[in-house]
């Protein structure tokens, strides 16, 4: 009998503690001193600023911005925390759950939403009534959430996707790099040409559709009140059917069924795929990974509505020095500081004052310069193609079902119905 108990104890320890969950319910954040109304007061005291993976590459830039702020406001002491790129959401989650969220934190809109729901972030539209007038509407709207009044982040910098074509592969396989596909029909037609000419060794298409692709063909992802998902429409099924047929014809590599989005750019970098979408700075990173390919890349405008990627700075509602925290967030995201940042890396400022800056609107004639200008001009019509309510788990279930439909193991309708049912279940919690 002793052996039985020893075995049971062993299993319990291995299974339960291995999968143990440490999380407990947390009280919603208590309202801070600046819960309503415009925040006014002396800018002073000690405040913390948390950024995401800026060290060591941009240490000099950020320290310069912070030093200038402290010089302007001698009574302020800024503690700068920079978190590594991996596991940032887990770090912010543990800070929020433990009540140690920094005064000013870099939060993309989807990270900020759960904190807004718990009342942990300051409504900046109340605290700083000049905000909406100084930042581009797309950036500000990214921090407005259905069911909540207010704006919960200063838009910091923006980016979007650009199409990148391998001109050498296109030419070698009978296509004109100056006339890249402008829509899915042309993309599939040219993918067939590439497959035939290269005898299946080169692909043009290497990514499966995601929710943003459904938005782009006019499918509504969620109901207006954000209470349920609605993307299981005949139009969405027709799009998945087209990808399934393309997959069946061998126009996409089989790895697309299990690959993540990063796989698309990876295959492009390896020179086995002739098309990828990526941010405006892709050629710069490509030049490091595959220097011989970088000069042969031709950028073009993304098909349909370009996606809008937003980073921002949010202010904790629990901050003890709200005037200083708001002043710091505004300072870091000011037109001057964003423009200086954009000269170091291909990101785009979210301030209206930067719109006329020729640095962004004129190319230096290189493919990288062309991509920057294409990305900058695309931002004018870029939108967030996926609702912020879509969580990591929902995204994974959607990708799994889309892959199943494209593999032909289920119908597109069944896959969409399953994805919507699961997303609704997760939304309701």
């Amino acid at each position: 009998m002793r052996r039985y108990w020893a075995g049971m104890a062993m299993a319990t320890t291995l299974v339960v503690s291995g999968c143990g969950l440490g999380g407990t319910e947390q009280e919603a954040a208590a309202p801070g001193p600046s819960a309503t109304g415009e925040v006014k007061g002396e800018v002073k005291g000690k405040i913390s600023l948390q950024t995401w993976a800026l060290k060591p590459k941009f240490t000099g830039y950020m320290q310069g911005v912070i030093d200038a702020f402290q010089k302007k406001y001698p009574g302020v002491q800024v503690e700068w925390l920079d978190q590594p790129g991996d596991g940032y959401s887990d770090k912010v989650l543990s800070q929020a759950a433990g009540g140690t969220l920094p005064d000013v934190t870099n939060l993309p809109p989807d990270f900020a939403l759960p904190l807004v729901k718990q009342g942990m972030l300051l409504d900046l539209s109340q605290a700083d009534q000049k905000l909406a007038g100084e930042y581009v509407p797309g950036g500000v709207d990214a921090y407005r959430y259905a069911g909540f009044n207010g704006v919960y982040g200063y838009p910091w910098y923006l980016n979007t996707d650009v199409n990148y074509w391998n001109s050498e592969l296109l030419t070698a396989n009978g296509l004109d790099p100056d006339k890249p596909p402008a829509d899915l029909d042309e993309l599939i037609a040219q993918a067939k040409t590439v497959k035939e000419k290269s005898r299946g060794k080169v692909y043009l298409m290497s990514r499966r559709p995601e929710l943003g692709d459904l938005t782009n063909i006019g499918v509504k992802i969620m109901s207006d009140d954000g209470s349920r998902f609605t993307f299981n429409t005949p139009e969405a099924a027709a799009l998945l059917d087209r990808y399934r047929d393309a997959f069946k014809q061998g126009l996409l590599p089989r790895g697309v069924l299990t690959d993540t989005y990063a796989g698309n750019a990876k295959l492009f970098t390896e020179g086995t795929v002739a098309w990828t979408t990526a941010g405006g700075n892709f050629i710069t990173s490509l030049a490091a990974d595959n220097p011989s390919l970088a000069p042969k890349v031709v950028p073009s405008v993304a098909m349909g509505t370009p996606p809008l990627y937003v980073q921002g700075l949010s202010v904790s509602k629990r901050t003890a020095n709200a005037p200083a925290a708001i002043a710091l967030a505004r300072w870091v995201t000011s037109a001057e500081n964003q423009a200086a940042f954009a000269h170091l890396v291909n990101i785009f400022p979210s301030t209206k004052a930067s719109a006329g800056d020729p640095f962004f609107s004129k190319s230096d004639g290189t493919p990288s310069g062309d991509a920057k200008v294409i990305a900058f001009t695309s931002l004018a019509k870029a939108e967030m193609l996926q609702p912020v309510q879509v969580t990591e788990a929902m995204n994974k279930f959607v990708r799994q079902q889309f892959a199943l439909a494209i593999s032909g193991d289920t119908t597109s309708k069944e896959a969409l119905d399953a994805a919507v049912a699961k997303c609704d279940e997760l939304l309701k919690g």
Partner: protein
Amino acid sequence: MSYRLTHRRWFTPWLLVAPAAVWLFAFNVWPSINTVVLAFSNAKPLGGGHFTGLENFARVLDDEQLADALVNSIVYMLVCLPLLTVLPLLIAVLVEKRLPGIMFFRTAFYTPVVASAVVVALIWGWVLDDQGLVNGFAQWLGVVTEPVPFLTDRWLLLFSAISLTVWKGLGYYMIIYLSALGNVRRELHEAAAVDGAGPVRRFLSVTVPGVRTTMLLVSVLVAVSALRVFSELYVLSNGTGGPGGRDMSVVMLIQLYSRGFTGHLGYASALSLVLLAVTIGPMLLLLRLDRKAA
């Protein structure tokens, strides 16, 4: 005299076990209790959550993905259990012999154990990819015309992961068996040989009974770790769980539900308890078989 008095203080044993006890309570006992409590709630990482009775367990019954994950975990265990219980023993018997150069083979078998599971799975992913070594070689030989979908077909992906687990585990269990074989008395082998028993007979009648307790230990370890498989399937499927998520293990599902700002801690905890229940079954069976054999 003073030494004897100090030694007899009633709290001395408690002081000695305190560090380990605190560690055990903080990182094993308390998380286990917490998991049971959370399984009956709809807790989230950031607030909310209340007692929901058996709601999470009712949801478990309707979860098709969990059914797939349980099938995967059970197939994983059923294949790994005999392979990883018997093959390492055979290898241990082979490398136990004191022959010139035997250390090379011992080291070669043990090397995969030292490598990280994630790194090994990444390498296997490259090897089994459509453009990988195996498919390239098979196509070059003309055995197949199209690449074999090792990483995108539901069952091929599962068995690729199982192969990886078996390959990586051989060396680890081999070492356990090597130490057990050292305790099998040499006289028994000599007596059996004198009685005319051949190598197979001696293996079955002397070696196997001699390491039966170790075989049980290995079986239990293999069964528990196979049911809790994560890294191999996660890395080979690039975290996706394959098309439709049909290659997810139960632990992958738990990870999926428990992560992020909106993690469903209650449901993830209920899944943990389901996994516990599933794990206890084969353990009880193995222990019963051992008792009968004894």
